[in-house]
């Protein structure tokens, strides 16, 4: 009896000490270490991440995404396709020729007459310049190459063209972002504009910024594309997702890149 009462008392104490239930990761906007991850009112997902997760991203030797970067580097100089070329045949050293591309996609492609993202640009080079088969969306080689190319732009501010021929994509992306969907009847903006900094159970909502993609997610135990994340954010609210690489997700990606403008590319990021 006494033991039971003691246990209850301890339990009550534990519950009392645990509230508020969440201990948010430390974030001080004046901390110089955070400056790289803030632009005006915009905050990278990094600033919402746990210190251990940040540490994994900070150190290229600890960052598990570097495995894919290594694969991408190998593929860069691998000859494939009927033209007998590798990426390096035309683009030379990625560290010299790909220093900004990752910050400017999605981008209108005059030849294709549509907005393409980095994954699709890489596949265009494969099918048209190399005479090689396109890589499937979310396949290992496409993830590896996208991450390798985008990482060359690390530290470059995100900046995309959203007017001119890109305008229809931008408008469609913005509409998507504010449109309620799914059985839960919510829009992206409800979580990432109206309620960032608050918690859905333990989950601390960030501003949903995209400057770190492709990202290594601890939950996935692997690297994943932005479109995979979008589909996940759709499925969680019981909405029918769109195919990865679809018009809808490329348009949304352009809108999200515009939202993230000014933040620095931090690919490959690590997130929970």
């Amino acid at each position, binding site marked *: 009896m006494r033991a039971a009462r003691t246990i209850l008392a301890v339990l009550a104490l534990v519950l009392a000490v645990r509230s508020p239930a969440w201990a948010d990761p430390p974030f001080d906007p004046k901390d110089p270490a955070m400056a790289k991850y803030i632009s005006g009112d915009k905050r990278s997902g990094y600033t919402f991440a746990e210190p251990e997760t940040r540490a994994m991203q900070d150190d290229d030797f600890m960052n598990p995404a570097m495995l894919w970067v290594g694969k991408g580097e190998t593929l860069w100089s691998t000859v494939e396709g009927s033209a007998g070329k590798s990426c390096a045949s035309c683009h030379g050293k990625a560290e010299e020729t790909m220093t900004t591309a990752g910050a400017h996609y999605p981008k209108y492609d005059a030849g294709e007459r549509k907005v393409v993202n980095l994954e699709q640009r890489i596949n265009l080079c494969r099918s048209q310049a190399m005479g090689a088969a396109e890589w499937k969306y979310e396949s290992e080689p496409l993830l590896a190459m996208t991450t390798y190319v985008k990482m060359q732009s690390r530290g470059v501010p995100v900046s995309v063209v959203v007017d001119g021929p890109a305008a229809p994509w931008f408008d469609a992306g913005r509409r998507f972002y504010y449109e*309620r969907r*799914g*059985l839960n*009847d*919510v829009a992206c903006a409800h979580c990432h504009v109206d309620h960032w900094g608050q*918690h*859905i159970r333990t989950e601390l909502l960030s501003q949903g910024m995209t400057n770190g993609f492709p990202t290594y997610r601890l939950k996935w135990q692997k690297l994943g594309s932005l479109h995979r994340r979008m589909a996940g954010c759709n499925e969680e609210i019981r909405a029918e997702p769109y195919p990865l690489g679809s018009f809808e997700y490329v348009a949304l990606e352009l809108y999200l890149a515009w939202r993230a403008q000014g933040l620095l590319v931090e690919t490959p990021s690590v997130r929970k």
Partner: protein
Amino acid sequence: MPATPWMRHAMACAMLVAWTAAAWAEMPGDAGRGRVAVIGKGNCLACHHLPIPEEPDHGDIGPDLSTVGSRLGATELAARIVDPKTINPDTIMPSFFKTDLHRVAKDWQGQTILTRQDVADVVAYLLTLK
């Protein structure tokens, strides 16, 4: 005459409209079952703090509901749960008894998050929170 899908749809809509009135307040509910629905199907703890200590990490998107029964009556609570957009068009809170939503996942099409009885049960539970 067999009911066509369209007729069934029209009937369902008419019933939903009719039910959003004070009729909800009349429907008997069970507070014990309501508490279960609040934790489970309703997933209200995602966004609200409630006096349910065995569940950890209540969200803080919406207001604390620990004493909501002293603030709101059955009709208001039912309206809030059935379709909160009638109260605040911009709210993040789901409509728990509404169909005709945009791009619902295939497995959930035509369904509502809570049944009519669930809504009455949840209202009965919330009314005990004073």
